[in-house]
């Protein structure tokens, strides 16, 4: 069977209540850059962590991963590359 390895990136999707300023505060506290809201999804933000390796088969660990402990952070997901085919 083909082993389907996951490829982790240095981008995160984060759901933070409290609006943009709050998201920015939390982002800088843990060394992330808040790139902005994800499309039209309210309270969902795109965070980028420049000191995390760009592609890795293991999910990233380090101080920045404590961000999930923040009370305002409702949900967080390190982005994984998906195989998509044009039809």
């Amino acid at each position, binding site marked *: 069977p083909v082993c389907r390895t996951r490829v982790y*990136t240095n*981008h995160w999707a984060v759901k933070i209540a409290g609006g943009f300023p709050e998201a920015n505060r939390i982002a800088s506290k843990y060394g992330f850059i808040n790139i902005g809201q994800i*499309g039209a999804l309210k309270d*969902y933000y795109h965070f980028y962590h420049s000191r995390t390796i760009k592609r890795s088969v293991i999910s990233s660990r380090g101080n920045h991963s404590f961000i999930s402990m923040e009370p305002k952070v409702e949900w967080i997901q390190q982005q994984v*590359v998906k*195989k998509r085919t*044009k*039809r």
Partner: protein
Amino acid sequence: DYDFSRAQSTYFNDPKWPSMWYMHCSDNTHPCQSDMNIEGAWKRGYTGKNIVVTILDDGIERTHPDLMQNYDALASCDVNGNDLDPMPRYDASNENKHGTRCAGEVAAAANNSHCTVGIAFNAKIGGVRMLDGDVTDMVEAKSVSFNPQHVHIYSASWGPDDDGKTVDGPAPLTRQAFENGVRMGRRGLGSVFVWASGNGGRSKDHCSCDGYTNSIYTISISSTAESGKKPWYLEECSSTLATTYSSGESYDKKIITTDLRQRCTDNHTGTSASAPMAAGIIALALEANPFLTWRDVQHVIVRTSRAGHLNANDWKTNAAGFKVSHLYGFGLMDAEAMVMEAEKWTTVPRQHVCVESTDRQIKTIRPNSAVRSIYKASGCSDNPNRHVNYLEHVVVRITITHPRRGDLAIYLTSPSGTRSQLLANRLFDHSMEGFKNWEFMTIHCWGERAAGDWVLEVYDTPSQLRNFKTPGKLKEWSLVLYGTSVQPYSPTNEFPKVERFRYSRVEDPTDDYGTEDYAGPCDPECSEVGCDGPGPDHCNDCLHYYYKLKNNTRICVSSCPPGHYHADKKRCRKCAPNCESCFGSHGEQCLSCKYGYFLNEETNSCVTHCPDGSYQDTKKNLCRKCSENCKTCTEFHNCTECRDGLSLQGSRCSVSCEDGRYFNGQDCQPCHRFCATCAGAGADGCINCTEGYFMEDGRCVQSCSISYYFDHSSENGYKSCKKCDTSCLTCNGPGFKNCTSCPSGYLLDLGMCQMGAICKDGEYVDDHGHCQTCEASCAKCRGPTQEDCTTCPMT
């Protein structure tokens, strides 16, 4: 400025126009026999004006001469590069041509002497560059939720690998984006997501393993070749909604569209070409009715797509009368039929979602066998907000462990007997992961009733040697029924609904919600024109009906309340005071009455007392007519008073003749000589007999027949013969103790006929008709005990 109405067949100066075989089917010069009737929609004036379509792909060459005229920067961005310009990345392989090709199918400009003509050639077209880089959940979510108040239709011609062994779908963020889109996109009408079905036909792939085509929020489009045959690349599944033309075998024609580097191609292929074609057709329908919701669009497609000459061996008609196939869904899309349906469409009632309880009974799936599980669904009939009576999508969430996923095939049969194949065997799927709460979806039960027995079948057909020690297990499964509690199609679907330009109304300063300010949700009974507040009294236009309160406030309702009737257009007007329901406001236009009143069906009025010749049916608050001879009655045949010239005979009225005569419809005739009174001619018409005769079974006789006895009691002085008890042959009175003789094989004993033999003294007849000896102290007896003695011995 092209005036279609005058042109017989459409002509454009675009060089590829004549070669676009899928636009000229009706010319009969091409092998294709069913037409998508796109020109028909154009001739009705629909070309995609004011509709915005965006292509989620590898970019769009916005500088292409055939695209720049309709290009819409507000419908475009670059997610991969995180900027606003969706221009594709160029390389030697021209790898990033896909988005530009799809865009041209939708909205390439017409009559600009360039390349080709888009299906919605007056629509606005954009592109989101999102495939040319790391595609993550976030990238897909950003794309799918890009500018949802401006973009009407999103078209995507990509998905998880079609390698026949992948099971993958939208991750949490993208699922959230789909849900947001249908809930809030297009000012609450819902974004329209069009998806290309799988291209993995050759790898025996099955599009039920693709969560994007399986989603209820996407319109999954498959392809058919020019001949109507199944293209080699096509996958089957029960979530495909419809189909459009695309490439087929190498000798079949392909799709013509714009290409990278400002070129033109007639080589676009696969289901990739079908999705944008469908998006273009939907754009025409949205122009015909901008208020169609995302579900309305799916309903319109279901009702207008046609099986035509499309070649499939599994066409079936479901219980709602829709013809459907796992290859082509409800068939080839028909643009003209769609715009015509859209023009007169009434928005379907609110979607209800019924999650039936999970069946957690673990069943072992053995090789070369099947597991069957039956679930009796109620359609959440106990919950008015969730009750699903008429189906739209049906999702089955299944968890299965299995050593070789590709050996599984799954079927679902609806209560109406429609069988969907949720999964077919996949030759190359060796995965041991099974399915974990995977959502299979079928649209094959569209329009059917939800309640009843649903049958899930899981077949295990080993495709090669397998370790049989660990059989598969169906761990759990549950049904999620989507649909409506009421009939979705309004009977008034026959005339245009909403005045087209209501939404450009002049702002009314007195509006406390401030039409422009109120952006919150409208009441479900508001039409798509919008509202200036949350309640049913804040609608700008009503979806179904409305009535007015005393203070002239207008309330939108789904049907007229009791005491009102449906007047012209959508107005509910009051009935007369005593009417419960009516067809007009006058007192003689009642259909049913309030409690305490009775409907006089002759005058259609509600009265407290029924007129002569009728009686009160208290169950139904009705005045019901008596039988024609009654003047008053308590029931139809229960006369209490007769009309003049008739007399009450028992509870009936008939013409009164003196005794010894009967009424034959004209006048009174003499009865038969045996009859003292009669209802008709002959000895059979006697009611009572003359002196010396007795009534026996409706006839007058001089003496009672065998098995009849003379009844001394008399009704009103007349004598009769009554039948003996069945155990007697003859008798002298009623019951079994007055026999005077018995049928053969029975013995008369003390007036009763006993079964069986003649016994000596000191013996009795037992239950089996045999002689048994009496108890010693009896000389004669009727049974075995002391108590049965009838004669004691001399001693």
